[in-house]
């Protein structure tokens, strides 16, 4: 599963990018850090023998979704808003505690669990065609549902985004 040094570097970048994304006061910075994070993860996908997913990650996430984010941030002019400190103290501590518990739990689990062998032969056929076959054979129904979901989302967005004044007139 790849070179450990490479993994550690990529992991470090991903984590740092994530932390920065959460910590940034400026929403635009956050968005950009998130893009960095997505890209790092896309590299990891490649290492994990998932080229198609990596490609989708970059095009859909880093491309389409993040552009949408940036667009909205700029549209609303909400780039500079509240940061971390403005959270209530209770919320902060509970959240931090829960996060620590979560991480600790997994740490315990990972340390205690039997180490898995990494002897993964690259026999997994994750080519787009194979993926496509899976998608349209075993998962054809969920796939169609996804289509419906997207349609619903599209209509929803259209409805929501209409001018309220106009909506009032229509109603």
């Amino acid at each position, binding site marked *: 599963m790849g070179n450990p040094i490479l993994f550690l570097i990529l992991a470090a970048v991903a984590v740092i990018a994530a932390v920065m994304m959460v910590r940034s006061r400026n929403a635009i910075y956050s968005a950009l850090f998130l893009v960095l994070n997505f890209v790092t993860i896309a590299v990891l996908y490649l290492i994990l023998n998932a080229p198609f997913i990596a490609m989708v990650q970059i095009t859909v996430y880093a491309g389409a979704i993040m552009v949408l984010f940036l667009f909205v941030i700029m549209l609303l002019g909400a780039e500079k808003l509240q940061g971390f400190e403005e*959270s209530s103290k209770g*919320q902060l501590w*509970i*959240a931090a505690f*829960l996060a620590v*518990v*979560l991480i600790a*739990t*997994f740490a*315990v*689990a990972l340390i205690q669990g039997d180490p898995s062998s990494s002897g993964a032969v690259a026999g997994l056929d994750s080519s787009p065609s194979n993926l496509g076959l899976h998608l349209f054979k075993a998962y054809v129904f969920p796939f169609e549902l996804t289509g419906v979901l997207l349609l619903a989302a599209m209509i929803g967005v259209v409805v929501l985004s209409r001018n309220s004044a106009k909506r009032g007139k229509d109603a």
Partner: protein
Amino acid sequence: MNAFGLAPLILVFPVIGLLLNGFFGRRFVDADRKTGEKLSGGFASVMALSSFAIAVLMFFSLRSHEFHAEVINLFNWIVVPSAKLQIPWAIQVDTLSVTMMMVVTGVGSLIHIYAIGYMHGDPNFSRFFTYLNLFLFFMLILVTGNNFLMLFVGWEGVGLCSYLLIGFWFDRVDKNGLPMNANAGRKAFVANRVGDLAMILAMILMFWTFGTLEFNTVFQSAVELFEEGHMVHFGLFSATLPAVLTAVTALFLMGAAGKSAQIPLYIWLPDAMAGPTPVSALIHAATMVTSGIYLIVRSNVLFEIVRASGELLFGIVSSADLVAYTGAATALVAGLIAFTQFDIKKVLAYSTVSQLGFMIAAAGMGAYVAAMFHLITHAFFKGLLFLGSGSVIHGMEHGHHHLAHGDDHHDDDFDPQDMRTMGGLRHKMNSTFIVYTIGALALSGIFPLAGFWSKDEILAHGGEHNFAVYLMLTIAAFCTAFYMGRQLQMVFFGKPRHAAAEHAEESSPLMVIPLWILAGLSVVGGFLLNLPFLTESLAEANHNHPTGIFLALEGWLEHSIQAFHLSEEGIVHLPHTPIVFSPMVAGLSTVLAVGALLLAFKLVYRDRPQTADERDPLEKIPFVWKFFAALPFETLFMKGFIPLFNKASHWLGHTLDGTIWHDFVHERVIRDNFVGFASFSADVLDTNGVDGLVNGSAKAVKRLANLIRRSQTGYARNYALSVFLGAVALVVYFVYMAN
């Protein structure tokens, strides 16, 4: 000649009489006093006489029937097939029952006739005769029944009539405003009921022992069981036959004590004198009170078996002997109490108690014939004495009435029965004086009057078989003569001590004629019944009847008294009454009687009081007077038992059942606690509890909701936090616990 088929008529006639008088008598009397009274009283008397005629018919039927008992079945009474209980209405005609029938109807008829005169002018004239006929009916059921239960019907029925007749003037009140007649009647009934309790128990015991209550069957199986020595079993109970019969006979004694006024239940009889005098004569002297003797004589077999078995009651005394002792003691005590009485009827009442004691004592000693003999003669002369006293009272009332009319001299306290107000009546009421004297002498036992023969037979029997009883009875006989002498002296001799006595007048012929008839019977009755069978010489009779049965009455009654035959067969040992005249006993008792009369006449009452207010000579002997004036049993009952019962019943009724059980337990404890609990429930538990629970849970929900609402900040981040919490919890669960 055989007329047994007519026997039921003896019961029918009194019923016709009572129904007619009950339904129509009042109308007759109200419509026309004079003829109505004659019609009402006459009809009742005719019915009584008709019954007497039937009784005589039965007498002759029996004679032609070799004196064999005859049972006439009428119809079934209580029949419980599965319990094998079968009790018929059936009439038994035998020499004993016919004797009783004749006494009852004979004396009864005379008293009916007498009563027409005595009750003249009473507003409830016809009711009186209804009661008299009813009494006759029940008394005849008592003596004619062929089983104990029928006897008991009559037994209770005559008790009822006694109650009704004592309470005939139920609206009379005494000085204290108490309804004395009603009270006296009630006392009589209740005292009788005490005896009835014993009768019921005895009958039930006999039923389970013998499986029947018919006289003949009971006696027969009693003898069989006794001979075979079987145990008596019923239910889980078992005992020997003599033990059971001891219980039965002791209970009979108790029953007889109630009805025949023996110790300790005699207390009702003196009070019963509150009733009209004919009633005292008929019921409380001649007939009803003798039914206890009839019962014992009727059950002679049972008594003799007990005597023969040697079974003792509580290990002390044979129940048959107990009968004798009870009778003798009663005779003595009552005879002594009679000394202290001033009421003319009460003297006679105690005398009756005393004479009944004689009879009971005789029956208890096994002298059944002597008991019956005395019963018959006593019916004559005591009936005579009571009717005579009624005549005296009537005369005194007449005198008082005359007085009240004459000079407006009216004193309400006048008591026409008080002997202290009488005196010198022999000139005013000549016929009454003569017959009364005959009666008194007969009662005292002066030769050759009826009382002499019968009393002497009892004494002779006692002299031979039971000295203690003989002694007591002899003293009692002495007492009898003394108090009769005292009474004669106080009533008829000397000078009138009250204006009323001076104006007393002889009663109407309707009243005097029955007196003469009874006087005649009192003179010759004893002698006639005591005659040997005229067909047999003394020696012949003695030979033919080794147990000593040769007198007329004995020859007649032996057919009903099975103990004679059993004695001949050697099953029981009936102590036989001496066959020959006993000069020793007879002489002594005659001397005593004459002596007592003279004592009363010459010594004690020689210087008799001259006015009504003066003290009785006997009162000067303090010990005697106080002792007998205290009326031992009367005091015990009236001052001890009855107040105790009243207190107990008031306590039970008002305090225990009312205050404690009803008010306290139910009201206070149960209801109030319930109400308390309920209001606690309603006000506290329900408002705060159930309601409170509902409201409270609502409140709690509200409070909780408020609490939770605080978490519902509406801030998405808070919600997210809880989602995250859940997610972490799930992870923790899966990692640590799911395996």
